[in-house]
Every structure is written in C-alpha cells, then in structure tokens.
C-alpha cells in the first residue's frame, strides 16, 4: 500500500473510532492499565533490585565477611549462661590462619566490638567500640573528615587513641572540634585523633552504621583496656560472653578469586569450628543471588503485566469482532467498489492498532507517573529506564496487531454478496 493511502487508512480508523467515543475509550482502558502496570512494576522492581545491589556493593564485592554467631546451643548451656561466660566465635587464630594459608587473600581485618558508654564532659552516649587495625579504612572505604585513622604504631604501642563516628562526634562535641580531646570510654581515657565523615544517606549497611555510631580504637588497646569478657545487660538480665573477634573482613586480590576463596574459608572454618558459631558472607554471592531474585521477580511481574495486557487485548478483540459484525454491510459495499481482502484487513487492523497505541501512550503517561508518586509518598526507590516506555509501546502495538488480526481476517473473509445482504 502507498504511504498516502496508509495515512488515509489511519485517518479513516480514527474517524471510525471517534464515532463510538465511549466504546473506544473503554476499550483503550484495558491496554492503558496493562501498559501502565508493566511500566510501574518494572520501575519499582528495578528500583528494589538496584537498592539491594547497592547495599551489597557497599559491603565490597571483593570482600568476604566472617561473623561470630552464637551457636545453636543445647539446654544445659542455656541454664548455665547466666553464671558462666559463654565462649564462642571467631578467634585471632582464625584471622591468622586465613591470612597465612590462602594465597588470594590480600588483607585480613579483625574486628572486635564492645558495647560501652562514652563520656565527654557532661554528655554520656552509648556506643560500640570497635577494636580493629589500620587496614579497616581501606577495606570498608571509611572517609576521614578530620585528623587521621588508626596507625600501626597505635596498634603496636597499644595507644589509647580513638577515631569517632560522625554522629557520636555531633552528640558528644556539638560545635566543638573533637580533635585531641580526651573522652572516657568505660573507665578508660582515650584521645580523639580522628573523626569520620558522614556516609552517604542511602547507605544503611552495618559498616555505615558503625561509621556513624562507632568509636574505632586499636585492637591491641581494646583487648588490654577492656579485657576479653563482654558483659551485656539488657532488661534486667545479664549475659556474659567471651568472644575474641566479632567480625573478620577479608579482602581478596581479584574479583575472580572471591568465590573460590569464600569456599576455602568456609571449609577451613568448618573444620576448626565444630560448633557452627560463625557465618561467612560473600557479598558477590549475594549479588548473584540478588540478580537471580531479580530475574524471578521480573518473570513474575512480567507475567502479571502480561495477563493484564492479555485481558486488554481480548477486550479489544471482542470490540473489534462486534464492530466487524456491525459494519458487515460497509465491508460488502467496499468490496463491491473494488476493495481487496488486504484493504479490508488493513482497515480494521489499523483501527485496532490505533486504538491500542492510543491506550499505550496514555498507559505510558500513567505508568511513568505511578513510580514518581510511589517515590514521593514512600522512600521506595524506583527507576524508570527509558527502555520501559519503548517496550510498553511496542507491546501495545503488538497486542493491537495480534488481537486485531483475527477480527480483520474475519472481515476480509466475508463473501461480498452475503455482506451486502446483511441488514
């Protein structure tokens, strides 16, 4: 068909649709909701998976994290625990073993966490003291706002120096400069040598939390000042535990080494810790899982959106079949005046496609505004990729063609004489 006659066929389609405004509008709604739900779901899904991935990436995709876990204990121990300290978790030896036996390991950062109160002049704030080593700052990417991070000399000399989190600094010092001020942690005096920068607002991981609320001291100082025993008091009950290291962060030389090293660490740890008092977290694995989850999520959302589009398409087909029957006479007239079957097909197909594309365009407008509204009223991240509207438009045109084909074919197959006799 000519370009000119195509344009005229499209105009004719519009005209026919305008004859039944309400019917056309209602039919369009099916596609409109289908398309807008495709876009809204994709955007919200994309936002959710983006957030998950960012959180995992914040852990460092080259890192492996080991954590102490209270072992799933038997009843005996439970009863005794009020009286006797519970021994479990990662040890200094574990950290050494990992650092020495695995070739792909670049850095091993041991971390010991002790809940304490910190005091400066009249202000007392609960905090978590992290005993660690200088490498912590590189591996977790903490940024210094003022002063410096811990040094190897601090560690070797078991100095009583501290680097404080951004929020702790605000709470303790308000407008004062905390550098070189002395603070009291428990019963001990520490000198502030550095203050950490505020992490990104979106970053809600554990490391970021420590960067706000924690106080970092040399691991050696933590052990010698606060001892091995940790007493936790909560709601009247007292719990004592002896944990050497709460976490070990392992940085691996390259991305390719991560999964193998993770497996090796799991094996070493399983051999050494029969009590299962640890956990190994491999962010890269989580990332892969998140990607898998996203794929499944997309399939589920895609199916739901697909079903709503299918329903919309069936609606269109239904209306078009009715239209074809209603216009049987017109079809007969056109055939008598020289229209070929393909002209009739084109006429009705164009009408369906025009209908579904108009629904598609309105659906895109609605679909793009839903994520914006969701983001406005909640703090859910949504991402509208430019591919979504294009995809959605393509789908709606496709639905129009797919579901318009049968009614158009029916129209074209009519016998001209029969069609002309139709009342």
């Amino acid at each position: 068909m000519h370009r000119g006659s195509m344009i005229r066929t499209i105009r004719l389609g519009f005209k026919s649709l305008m004859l039944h405004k309400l019917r056309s509008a209602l039919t369009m709604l099916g596609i409109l909701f289908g398309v807008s739900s495709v876009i809204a779901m994709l955007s919200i899904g994309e936002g959710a998976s983006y957030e998950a991935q960012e959180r995992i990436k914040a852990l460092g995709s080259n890192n492996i994290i080991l954590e102490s876990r209270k072992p799933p204990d038997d009843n005996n121990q439970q009863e005794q625990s009020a009286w006797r300290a519970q021994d479990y978790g990662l040890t200094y030896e574990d950290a050494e073993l990992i650092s020495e036996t695995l070739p792909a390991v670049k850095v091993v950062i041991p971390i010991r966490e002790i809940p304490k109160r910190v005091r400066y002049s009249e202000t007392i704030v609960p905090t978590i003291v992290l005993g660690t080593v200088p490498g912590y700052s590189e591996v977790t990417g903490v940024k210094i706002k003022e002063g410096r991070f811990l040094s190897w000399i601090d560690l070797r000399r078991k100095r009583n120096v501290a680097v404080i989190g951004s929020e702790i600094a605000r709470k303790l010092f308000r407008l004062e400069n905390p550098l070189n001020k002395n603070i009291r942690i428990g019963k001990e005096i520490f000198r502030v040598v550095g203050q950490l920068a505020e992490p990104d607002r979106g970053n809600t991981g554990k490391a970021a939390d420590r960067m706000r609320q924690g106080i970092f001291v040399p691991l050696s100082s933590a052990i010698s000042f606060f001892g091995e025993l940790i007493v936790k008091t909560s709601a009247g009950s007292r719990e004592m535990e002896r944990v050497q290291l709460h976490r070990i962060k392992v940085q691996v030389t390259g991305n390719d080494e991560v999964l193998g090293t993770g497996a090796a660490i799991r094996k070493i740890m399983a051999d050494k810790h029969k009590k299962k008092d640890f956990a190994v977290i491999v962010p890269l694995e989580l990332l892969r899982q998140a990607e898998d989850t996203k794929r499944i999520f997309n399939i589920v959302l895609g199916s739901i959106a697909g079903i709503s589009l299918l329903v919309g398409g069936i609606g269109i087909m239904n209306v078009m079949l009715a239209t074809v029957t209603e216009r049987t006479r017109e079809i007969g007239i056109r055939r008598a005046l020289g229209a070929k079957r393909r002209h009739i097909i084109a006429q009705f197909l164009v009408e369906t496609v025009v209908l579904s594309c108009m629904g598609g365009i309105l659906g895109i407008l609605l679909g793009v505004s839903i994520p914006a509204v969701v983001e406005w009223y909640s703090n859910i991240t949504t991402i509208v990729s430019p591919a979504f509207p294009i995809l959605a438009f393509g789908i709606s045109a496709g639905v129009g063609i797919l579901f318009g084909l049968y009614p158009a074919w029916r129209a074209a197959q009519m016998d001209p004489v029969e069609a002309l006799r139709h009342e």
Partner: protein
Amino acid sequence: MEPGGKGCEDPGEEGVETRASMPAPHFQPAEQDPPPVREELVRLDKVKRIYRMGENIVRALDGVDLSIRRGQYWSIIGRSGSGKSTLLNVLGCLDRPSSGEYYLGGTNVSELDDDALSEIRGQRIGFIFQSFNLIPQLTVLENLEVPLFYQEHEPKVAKERAERYADRVGLKDRLHHRPNELSGGQQQRVAIARALMNEPLILLADEATGNLDSKTEMEILTLLDELHEEGMTVIMVTHSDKVADRAGHKLELRDGKILQITHHKKEDL
C-alpha cells in the same frame, strides 16, 4: 480468444458475431460515433450458480447463455427469486458461477481469484443497489472517493472527479452532507455518481428504483437513460414491465433460466 459463436436462447434473434473482443475499452463520451460493429462486452456460456443447503439444491442460475455488446441497455426482469440478483452479481464479478464461463471484455473472469475480481470490480464495474448502500459515516464527497481510494488515485484527482460527477447528478451543493441528510432520490443519485467514479465498462443497477416513489423513480430512470445515451452500457434489474421496457433489450428469467429475450432496439446489435 473468442469461443465459437453461440446463439442466445431467444430463438428469433440472429447469432452472435464471432468478432474478437478488444481488451477493456473504457466508457466513452457520446460525441464519438459508435463503431460500426459493437464489440461484445459480456458473454455468458452455460453459466450456473448453484446453492447447496444441506439436502436442498437451489439452482439460482441454471445454464444461462448471454451476449451483451458495448453501449447496449438491458433490463432483466422476473419474479422474485428467479435469479435476477444472482445474475447481476455474477455479471458484476461479486459472485462466481458454479460452472460455465463468463467472459468480460474478452477475459475469462470465471477463472480469476478474489484479488483479480476485486480489481475488475474496482476498474470496470459500477454498481447501483436498491438500498443505495452509501456508507453512513462518510460524507457524500467521501463516499464518492471510496472507489478511487482502492485504485490508489491521487486524492486530488479523486476529489476533482467526485465534484464533476456530483454535478452531473445535480448534487454539487450536497458534497459535505451525510447520506442520512439526503432524500432517497438524492441518495440514489449519489450512488449513481459513485458508480461512475471509476469510469466503468458496465453500469449494473439492481432494482435501483425499488425504494423510491414514482416521481423520484422517473428521475432516476431518466438519469440512467441519459447515461445510456452518452454511451454507457447499462444493465438493470427490475420487476416492473413498464420499467423493463425502457431498455433496448429485455431478458426474462424464470427459475434461473432465460425464458425470453426481447430486442426492442435492433440498431445497436
């Protein structure tokens, strides 16, 4: 190309000339002198159109032989159900014979496929129906443009021609009206103008005045007479003898068979 000459069923008439037909001559203005021997436009050879409905077999056309020459004016008459419309539909390539041959301007159209038949309808046939059959949602002008749309004429050409034929049937001032804003007679005039749009070889009218009062009927018949005088080949179906006798050649059908052919006008044979 030409099959051996076969006479019409009418016994009193001379045989059909065996002169070969020219390919697709077009409707020509009246000023030109008619050629000495008129070429054969339509030739039916033992045409049957049979409907099977379960056990029943309806022979709507039961062996029709017919020869129509260019510029002739024919009427087809017969009782209701005698096969008049079926015959006209076959002649107009809307319907295909179940058996037998139909030559239109020398082409055997009984062998053509749907697309080719559509093309013939679009290029060589003008239809006029009892119920006007205008497309209600289109204006007069748009209705007139429909046939040329399928011939992929330039819109400008189509519009120009539509105006010309609307003028010819006296409805130039109604171009932007819709069919339901016109009287029956006016609608039928539009339909006639539309039938002329593709400058057809034959004009076919199926009880074109059946829905009209006698005064309007006269106007429409006069218009058809004029078109014939201008050189158009006209075939009209009617059930009124009075109307049928206006035509130069009258064909009477009964039960799908030709009962009689009367030639009132022998000079155009």
